[in-house]
């Protein structure tokens, strides 16, 4: 197993751990962190492919994703904060009545 394969396996593992976390954990903050894990898994695969094909576009894309992820978390954290302050819990089950 060469380096590329190892890195890809790591990326898949990160993604899978993140996905599993989002699916089974009920704590909103933990779910957000798991989503970051999934994002990082994807970024890792981008960098790996970028290195393998000796192009820079994948690496450039990574910076874009960082910006988007930062913006996303900057919105998500205050939402969770507000919800937590109102409901006095971080359990997403308590937010079920927000559905349309």
């Amino acid at each position, binding site marked *: 197993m060469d380096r590329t394969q190892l890195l890809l396996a790591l990326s898949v593992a990160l993604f899978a751990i993140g*996905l599993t976390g*989002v*699916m*089974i954990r*009920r704590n909103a903050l933990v*779910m957000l962190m798991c989503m970051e894990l999934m994002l990082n898994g994807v970024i890792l695969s981008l960098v790996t492919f970028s290195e393998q094909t000796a192009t820079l576009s994948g690496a450039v894309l990574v910076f874009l994703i960082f910006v988007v992820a930062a913006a996303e978390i900057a919105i998500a954290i205050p939402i969770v904060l507000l919800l937590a302050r109102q409901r006095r819990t971080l359990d*997403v*089950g308590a*937010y*079920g*009545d*927000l*559905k*349309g």
Partner: protein
Amino acid sequence: MNLLTLIVVLPLAGFLLNGLLGPRFGRPFVTAVGCGLPILAFLATVRAFLQLQAGGGDDPLIQTAYTWATVGDFKFDIAFYFDRLSAVMALIVTGVGSLIHVYSTGYMKDDPSYARYFAYLNLFLFFMLLLVLGRSLLVCFVGWEGVGLASYLLIGFWFEDPAKAAAGKKAFITNRVGDAGFLLGMFLIYRTLGTLDMDGINAAFAGPVLPAVSASLIGVLLFIGATGKSAQIPLHVWLPDAMAGPTPVSALIHAATMVTAGVYLIARLHGLYEHAPEASQLIAVVGVATAFFAATIAIVQTDIKKVLAYSTISQLGFMFLALGVGAYGVAVFHLYTHAFFKACLFLGAGSVIHALGGEQDIRNMGGLAKRIPVTFATFAVATAAIAGLPPLAGFFSKDEILWFAFASESGGSPLLWLVASGTALMTAFYMFRLLWLTFLTPSRMSHEVEHHVHESPLSMTGVLVVLAVLSAVGGFVSIPHFLEHLLPLPGVHHELEHYETPLIVLSVVLALAGLAAAFLIYGKGLARGEALAARFPRLHKLLSGKYYVDELYENLLGKPLNWISERVFLGLGDRFLIDGSLNGMASLAQRAAGRLSRVETGNLQFYVLLAVLGVIACLAWIWRNG
């Protein structure tokens, strides 16, 4: 702008000024424009007439106002044609029209929609002049439709009353039936002759080689149009209802001018009808039948305007009888005298209604002769004129119609004469009945109406006097002679010639007999007439039910049409197909959305699971098919 165009455009200007600015500028302005422009049009017509006479009278003035459309190498011109026939018509239309405008200033004085009234009346005059002066059948048709529109607007002038609005609609729709015939006739003429100019049509039929088309077919189609406009059987039903309009309107549109448009059309196209013996026969029979049946109905009517309405239908029947036996000039003669005495009668009736504050039932009148003497005197002159007492106008024209119905070589027969003479007798009877019941018998008015009675203002009585004088002496102008070059009179059966004087005497005797009968039965009041009605209850019911033609049309046409509209078009088409399909789609979307919205549980983990399953499904699909 040339003279003929000016005649037509003046009333149009009146319509626009009064319609757009009238309400803002007040009544004096409306009166000045509404009466002034028709009078100017009359003066312009007189001037055109003098020009025509100066040129010998046989060369028509033809003036083109505008080229409407050019199709291929055929031009549709808006051209005006002024020969002796259209001169007579235009003089009647603008002359009687102006008089009635002046009368209206008194009659409509207190109406809140004064400006609208004069705008419509001027609009009518414009279209009527277009009809009369148009050279092409197409221009004539525009006028024909336009007077129908003006008639609709004026019948329904007091549209707040649903019955009056319905009367307007009835007139318009009945006329549409006739107009279909007119249009078909026009199509046929254009297809075979390639022209719609009326002088061109007459010339085509006057040539040595007749056009390859049945003149009778065209003749019958155009006559269907004429039955609509001129209220002949079977399309006569609208005219009595048209009395819902203001009385001057009934005088102008539904007695003197518009309803004679059919007579004018056939006289104008006499060249065609001379080669259409079958159509002419039909016209004579329909005319005499209409005259007879309308007269029988008029005998039992109790509304003063309805009596006059049926009398108009009956007199129009006389005119068509004259047309049918080839005496076109005589028909126009009767049209001309009828315009005077019938306008006088209607305006007199208007004056009576005005005096009585809206009462129209002659059973509640009587004794008005002393209270409104000018109205009575003029009404009496006009009554004698329509009854055919010599030497008043109606005597000359009616007598000539009877003579040609008897002896004309193109379709006259003693049978036509017999029915027409019977009608003349009835005419005298019902007109003098009206005169006695309204003016001469002891008063049957209620006390407050009696108190209200007053003679009309000078604007109304003056017009009545002018029209009464014209009904008295109008007959001395021999229109048939005046039009002889244009509308030659038919030949007369030789062996019948020596009957002429006895027939004249007989018709005078008949008129006097009608007078005597009316005096005997109604001279003292209603009692004898009512006793007579009680003796023949069935006949009386049939006549006062107007032969149930309205009911027949209602059952034969109205109800099936309503049923189809209600059930098929509304029920099946609109409600079921159109509404149903739209509402069905809407409720389909709603129900589908209702089902799908159950997926949204509010459980975030469940959403993620669904997303993951979706991604897996996509990947699986790509793996299998990619």
